[in-house]
């Protein structure tokens, strides 16, 4: 078996077309995911984390399009694949879970059938066989009484149950890579904990690599070995998960960590005024020149306005994109 990483993304650029103008919603994004590895992408709304995932699975739609860079999956550049080849990959080897379990399933189709479609599409199974496998798939995501639940329609299931169905669909063909886009944001905390456990366990069993996307830094750090922090279309810092909280290197990351009221912090240290990050998240069409974080950054100097910082490798692993990193 080759030691090449499962997924390599180099200098990915995603354009947002507004009229005739194209704005880089994602730019110079590079990362790799090894087989069975878990990478987290964390960032605020509009930072480009979700569309990065959509680009990986080839589901960007107008007004978004890949504007440059290379996505190499298992050694093959996916941009060079024909639509039919891409379809074979999608679902079978790369699959995705979306944020909204309420709308991500077809309301007019029983969930069992929606799972069974995977076996018909990718394994050439007959519908009868596929329906049987769907029961097993539902059982594997720990849905009680799966042989009855397969006949249910999405509206008969709770949000947590629907997200389990989504996971069953996504993992039906034991893919190499699972893209999980805010899979628990719409769920209650106790349900979230169960769903996260489920993803963790099932992917470990199957050797599936995970790209986990969330705005919740704590969740990402808990779930992933490595974390990429995105801001305004760029990965500003990529580190081992523990380091992101303990010793953040980019001013944005450290600002974010200091601004979060972490559970247990007050009990340990008493109430501090939270550190604020000034300003607002810029919209895609108004990303600032130079370092995109400079208007909100405490450490900003002239060079941050003038020049785009390069990626710097950090001594103990990881990288940061900042002129003044710590």
């Amino acid at each position: 078996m080759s030691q090449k990483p499962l997924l390599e993304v180099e200098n990915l650029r995603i354009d947002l077309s507004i009229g005739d103008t194209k704005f880089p919603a994602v730019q110079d994004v590079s990362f790799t995911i090894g087989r069975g590895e878990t990478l987290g992408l964390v960032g605020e709304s509009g930072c480009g984390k979700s569309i990065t995932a959509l680009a990986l699975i080839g589901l960007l739609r107008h007004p978004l399009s890949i504007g440059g860079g290379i996505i190499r999956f298992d050694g093959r550049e996916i941009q060079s694949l024909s639509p039919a080849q891409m379809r074979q990959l999608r679902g079978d080897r790369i699959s995705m879970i979306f944020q909204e379990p309420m709308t991500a399933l077809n309301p007019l189709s029983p969930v069992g059938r929606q799972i069974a479609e995977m076996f018909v599409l990718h394994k050439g199974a007959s519908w009868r066989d596929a329906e049987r496998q769907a029961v097993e798939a539902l059982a594997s995501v720990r849905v009680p009484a799966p042989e009855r639940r397969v006949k249910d329609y999405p509206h008969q299931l709770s949000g947590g149950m629907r997200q389990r169905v989504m996971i069953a669909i996504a993992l039906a063909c034991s893919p190499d890579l699972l893209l999980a886009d805010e899979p628990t944001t719409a769920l209650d905390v106790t349900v979230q904990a169960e769903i996260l456990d489920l993803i963790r366990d099932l992917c470990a069993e199957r050797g599936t690599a995970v790209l986990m996307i969330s705005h919740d830094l704590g969740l990402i750090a808990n779930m992933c070995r490595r974390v990429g922090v995105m801001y305004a279309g760029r990965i500003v810092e990529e580190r081992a998960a523990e380091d992101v909280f303990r010793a953040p290197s980019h001013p944005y990351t450290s600002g974010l960590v200091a601004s979060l009221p972490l559970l247990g912090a007050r009990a340990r240290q008493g109430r501090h005024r939270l550190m604020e990050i000034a300003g607002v998240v810029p919209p895609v069409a108004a990303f600032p020149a130079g370092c995109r974080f400079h208007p909100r950054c405490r450490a900003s100097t002239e060079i941050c306005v003038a020049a785009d910082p390069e990626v710097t490798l950090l001594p103990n692993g990881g990288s940061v994109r900042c002129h003044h990193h710590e």
Partner: protein
Amino acid sequence: MLSFIVRRLLQTIPIILAVALLIFVMFSVIPGTFASSMGDDGRGMLDAQVMERMNKEFGLADPVYVRFGKYIAQLAQLDLGMSFRTRQPVSSVLADRMWPTLQLSFAAMMFSIVIGVPLGFIAALRPGSIIDTVSMVGAVSGLSVPKFWLGLLMMYFFALQLGWLPSFGYGDGGLRYLTLPAVALGVAPLALLARTTRAAVLEIMNADFVRTARSKGMSEWRVVQWHLARNALVIVLTTIGLQFGTVIGQAVVIEKLFAWPGLGSLLVDSVTLRDIPVVQGAILLIVMFFLLVNTLVDVLCAIIDPRIKYT
């Protein structure tokens, strides 16, 4: 399932009763009765004795609520009263005229469904294409054209100039006679169905579950086949049901233009002559037919869409 259908049918009864009450009250406040309107018609005043006799004969001398009570009681026995004009039972007058109207309405709807729905579908699958642009320009024109004018023009070209089809009348009730009025009547619902179908398909195309379907690795054709068609159908069916009402309403004009012996031309004639029992009966029949079609549509939707509960 059966109980669902029965319940939906039962739910239409209050509406039918309300319609009966509404038109009854409306025509009870008419300034002047049939008898006096005959007087207006230029045939000279009827003498008071005749008027009184007629009012009595048709039970018009009683107070309004008594008349409504009697009316409803008769209605329950499917007795719609007697035509002022022909003195025939209204029900038999209506029975003669019902079939041509049903024929015309169904033909118009079939024409609009068979062309409109696929057209909207194709347009939505290729948004911005020539076929999309042309069909949508066509659709807005179809919605805007007065149908009796269109009928008149078609009558001129296809019947009078080209001589392909008869210009008016029921004839043997066959396709040759049906074509022109059905097309003239069907153009507007065709246009509306094309637009609705297109909008519905476009909306579903952007739905999250279609994105899920794509993420499974389905081809666009599979997505349409497995996930899009049924969902669009629910919206289209509802529109079809509502359009039936509009079509029957508009049939009035087309029947008059093409001298089609249906409920519509009967209704216009009866209104002009204030033959009120016939007017009431015709409207009630049209409303009942509309409700029946929509109940059918509801049942179909409930079969397709599991979110609609059988309650």
